């Protein structure tokens, strides 16, 4: 079953988008309703999710570009 799941750049982009959206929702919560708890959530959960999604996106784009150049 696991072997049948094909991990493509698209899969990574979808994961990245989900992480980014969840991270942004935590940040949005602290923007709209700032309390100690929402601030902590924004810093502890929002920030890592946003920066992990950024890193994954950059890595996937670089690998994809390299692959395209090789195939060309």
């Amino acid at each position, binding site marked *: 079953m696991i072997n049948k799941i094909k991990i*493509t*750049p*698209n899969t990574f*982009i*979808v994961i*990245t*988008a989900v992480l*980014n*959206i969840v*991270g*942004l*929702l935590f*940040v*949005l919560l*602290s*923007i*709209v309703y*700032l*309390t*100690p*708890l929402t*601030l*902590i959530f*924004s*810093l502890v959960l*929002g*920030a890592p999710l*946003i*920066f992990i*999604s*950024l890193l994954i*996106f*950059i890595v*996937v*784009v670089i690998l*994809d570009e390299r692959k395209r150049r090789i195939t060309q």
Partner: protein
Amino acid sequence: MTYSESDLQTIKYILAVLCLIAITISIYSTFFRSRDIRKLIKGFSILGDNTTKWLLFMSFVIISPLVFLVNYEKSIQQSKRNDFCNSCHVMHGYIEDLENPDSDSLASVHYQYRWISDYQCYTCHSEYGLFGTAKAKVSGIGHVRAQYFLGYETPLKIKGTYNNNICLHCHGPVLDFQDIGEHEDNIKELEQNKMSCLGADCHVSPHPKDAWKTNDK
């Protein structure tokens, strides 16, 4: 950098809009736009479409980190406000006393006469300098942990000894302070926190002793 209240409100709305734009771009580019194109081109890769790639770049690399960083700066400043401290129930009594014009507690008098113009809680409960600010943030995280997860013991007590140098930072250079014999005689002990400014025949309590009980009403 310090922002005025109206600036902070404007920044708040801009950040909320940017946040929604980034979320919309992410959802549209990843789930809707690419799905439509995929119908047209078999084996379509999201990154194969330049417009989608740039939209995602805008959202993931520019808007999202920018929103987080600006919101972080804004939130850190807003977290110095009294109403932020008041968002924990146990603080209600302390803030009520602070805002009570009939109260003669030290904190209230400092607030009523605006001897401290802004961020009165933060000013008296954070030490000066870079490490003072960092220490205040760390102890703030401890307060959140106590409020939401671990609980706290009542009556509330300050952790360790109150640092007199926070008082001396403002009062120390004032001539009226220096002219008082007790201050002059005990300045070394006060600076080294071997003696408290409060109690004995010196200064009254900063907060009413039962302020924490207001929460239970």
